[in-house]
């Protein structure tokens, strides 16, 4: 890899980890890489626009649900005025809800599970670790100190849980990717089991915060839990 190829690769994706051989011997490219990583941070902050409250539009009733529910029975048509009234009523009830406030999670566990759907591309089998810079930028020193001893970390992103920005990491487990959410501001008294159709794990109390560790059903999480707990130290 020469300088031009390296710079094109790093400018296309600043988390590019290849070209280590070239980088070691090229001070100019080392400087270029530092500049691109700094630029990336500025781009990322600039793109994070403030999101206004978005009003949910009036959602029409969906006929398919009726068809399924009434299967096997002859459907009797309601008068047109009744259908219109029902639609207006539904719109009046649903239409005033704001998207922001439309969801209220019953528990931290439910919000954590919902968040897993937020970034499905994070849950990939991979043997490529995130760079040290990426890990450090996500697990900000203000939040926690963490090293690579937790396992093969293949994904690192800052996400929002319960209104707080938290590091979202993925470690490769035996059965597949394991999600780690470091939540220094979510204090819990006891470990909370988290289970749904495909996922199981736990939210562990850690000092004044907590750490969620979630894998596919059947994943052996004990070793990962131990190594994560050993590798993380809250900064506050």
């Amino acid at each position, binding site marked *: 890899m020469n300088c031009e190829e390296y710079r094109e690769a790093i400018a296309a994706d600043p988390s590019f980890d290849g070209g280590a051989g070239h980088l070691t011997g090229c001070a100019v490219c080392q400087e270029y890489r530092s500049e691109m990583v700094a630029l990336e941070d500025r781009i990322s902050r600039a793109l*994070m626009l403030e999101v*206004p409250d978005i009003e949910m539009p009036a959602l029409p009733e969906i006929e398919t649900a009726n068809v399924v529910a009434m299967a096997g029975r002859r459907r009797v048509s309601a008068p047109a005025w009744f259908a219109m009234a029902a639609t207006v009523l539904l719109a009046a009830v649903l239409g005033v809800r704001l998207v922001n406030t439309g969801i209220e999670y019953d528990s931290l566990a439910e919000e954590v599970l919902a968040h897993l759907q937020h970034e499905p*591309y*994070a849950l990939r089998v991979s043997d490529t670790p995130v760079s040290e810079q990426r890990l450090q930028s996500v697990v900000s020193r203000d939040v926690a100190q963490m090293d690579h001893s937790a396992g093969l970390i293949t994904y690192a992103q800052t996400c929002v849980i319960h209104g707080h920005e938290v590091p979202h990491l993925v470690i490769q487990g035996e059965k597949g990717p394991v999600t780690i959410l470091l939540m220094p501001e979510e204090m819990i008294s006891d470990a909370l089991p988290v289970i749904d159709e495909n996922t199981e794990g736990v939210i562990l109390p850690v000092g004044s915060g907590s750490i969620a560790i979630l894998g596919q059903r059947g994943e052996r999480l004990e070793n990962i839990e131990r190594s994560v707990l050993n590798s993380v130290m809250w900064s506050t």
Partner: protein
Amino acid sequence: MQKANPDRQRRHRFDRLVGVFHQDMYRYAAWLSRDKAIAEDVVQEALLRAWKSLDALRDDAAAKPWLLTIVRRENARYFERRRLETVDIDNLTASQAALLAQEPDEDLNDMRAAIYALDDDYREPLVLQVLMGFSTNEIAEQMGLKQGAVLTRLHRARAMLKEVMDDETAA
């Protein structure tokens, strides 16, 4: 009463997905349209369309790209209907300027203006990569491009931003 439960489940599923992804939908729409008011209109239309076709989404794990694709199409429809002209950054409407609302951080304002001024072809893949966390493969799929074209656009987008920001620093 038989239909109450499926309806509620459908609504609950929709609320859950929208609750998780509405911020991404808005930001994507805002950077596509470069206009706060249009972005809100586009997101509303996208929510309505998503609600109507929710049953086509088989796997909730694919909800994010699915919703963003709807936003992208609604944005295109909006501009087809309006046939809006190219934005002149020195002559913005109030709603366009609102997107570039001044922050105390001058560097942030400069970068936001620089991204705003990027051509659509460069701005969109950058937003998908940096903000949405898409891989270059996923961006290629979303935009109907080859991966090589995506890499080139990302490389050029950052090179342009770097040049603008270096000039700002030097000035």
